[in-house]
């Protein structure tokens, strides 16, 4: 599940960072909204950048002028995430994926509540490479609870097969999580949308600029 979450984030951000960094997002934005003025991001916007996925694939749809700012992230999967977001600034994204159990009693520890269960990340895209790290935090509050957990894993990626633009192509990701894990991310764009398919994740995600 952790890897799935990492993949999800990476998939979202590969799209988002590259689009933003390279201004490649073209097309008639399927603009079905106006963004939202709330939130903490700069450039809250006029476009309605939307991403989604089905099964093991994901999409990041972009407006004509991709903006930096705060993105909502949602998902549909076995471990569907809680309220999550990332903030895109240039080619860097900072955010957190909150796991579904955060804030709920821990079913395995009757007197404990999971106070924090999230992956906080920072990722940067540059040309054909992606790099970053995740800090995985799980904390409990209550009686006779597990020891809090905190660890960091690194993620790197490179584009091994370029496509028709700065985002298209096949990407190989390496997640250093107590031993490297490689996976392939296939990215395709069309009419202002970007899709990313992971070879090993069923995690489905969506991202939308607020």
């Amino acid at each position: 599940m952790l890897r799935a979450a990492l993949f999800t984030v990476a998939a979202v951000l590969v799209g988002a960072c590259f689009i933003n960094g390279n201004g490649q997002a073209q097309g008639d934005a399927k603009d079905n909204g106006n963004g939202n003025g709330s939130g903490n991001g700069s450039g809250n916007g006029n476009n309605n950048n939307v991403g989604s996925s089905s099964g093991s694939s994901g999409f990041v749809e972009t407006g004509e002028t991709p903006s930096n700012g705060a993105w909502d992230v949602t998902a549909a999967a076995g471990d569907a995430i809680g309220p999550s977001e990332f903030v895109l600034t240039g080619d860097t994204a900072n955010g957190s994926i909150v796991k579904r159990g955060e804030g709920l009693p821990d079913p395995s520890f009757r007197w404990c509540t999971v106070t924090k269960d999230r992956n906080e990340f920072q990722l940067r895209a540059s040309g054909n490479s992606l790099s970053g790290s995740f800090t995985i935090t799980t904390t409990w509050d209550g009686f006779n609870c597990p020891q809090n957990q905190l660890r960091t894993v690194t993620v790197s990626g490179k584009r091994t097969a370029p496509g028709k633009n700065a985002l298209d192509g096949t990407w190989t990701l390496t997640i250093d999580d107590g031993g490297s894990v490689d996976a392939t991310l296939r990215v395709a764009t069309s009419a202002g949308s970007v899709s990313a398919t992971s070879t090993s994740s069923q995690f489905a995600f969506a991202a939308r600029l607020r």
Partner: protein
Amino acid sequence: VKRAHVAIAALVVCGGLALASRTRAPSKSEELPELGFDFCASRVALPIKREEAAWSHPLVFGLLLALSPNDARRLSTAVEDANHRWEARTNPFTEDLEDGDPDDVLAKWLADAPAAARTAVTAAKPRFCGADGWCVRVVARGSACPTGLERVSIADRAYGRARFLAWPFGHALWLRARTPAEAAGAAAALRAHAGESEHIAFVIHAGDDELTRTTRGDLRDALVQHEILRRRASGDDPDRPFRVDGDGGATSQSAFPSAIGPLDVVVLPRLSVVDRPGALEAEVHAAAPGVVVLSERGAPVEGGGR
């Protein structure tokens, strides 16, 4: 994480859905009803307090009928395994010797479950929040918002965000057939098509209650039993209404109207529809021609005023 399975396990608890109105009317003389979903929003304090899943009858029945025989069999096995452990915990003369959550087996099932299950689990969330604390609840079209929440108008800038966060409802389609038989036929056709669809998660129809009794009876019974056991083990009231018999109706949390009409079929989407306006509708038209599709509220419609 482990709430997802509880959700599935709770497949038995209580609630409907919908969408809007502008559309290709079947006939101009026929007035289409205002069925669908509205969004009610509020900003909550951080950190956001999580709420237990709120399952409704339509969700549970629709999901059970969406499962392939193999998926249903796997779920049935998982539920039975979970029930054994819950039973051991509730029985003073036995002991659950295993560690961890009895519902872990359901979580494992859910991890490999079809898209219908993922949509259903998401739809069972009582509210849908952004990380900044902006949360929406879904109510049946025209219903009052819960106290303290404000209706999100279609003209509001936040409407798009509400649809996104609450995507199982924000992108669902409500179909209306001319006759009950036609509605049942459309539901069956869409259900048969959903397995290979990129956009349809599952289908809800008034006949689902009866159909689950005849086609998924054992699984349905096991889920009821699971909910009872789980509640007993956790000190919850096992008699709190969650009837799956059909006459319990929806809970107050439900986004569904009190009843799905015999002419109606509701299609819940996969997440992939979020950025593909019109794709679900096109697929529905192809799979079930003859029914009226009430357009997604807020989706671009010819001459629409968004």
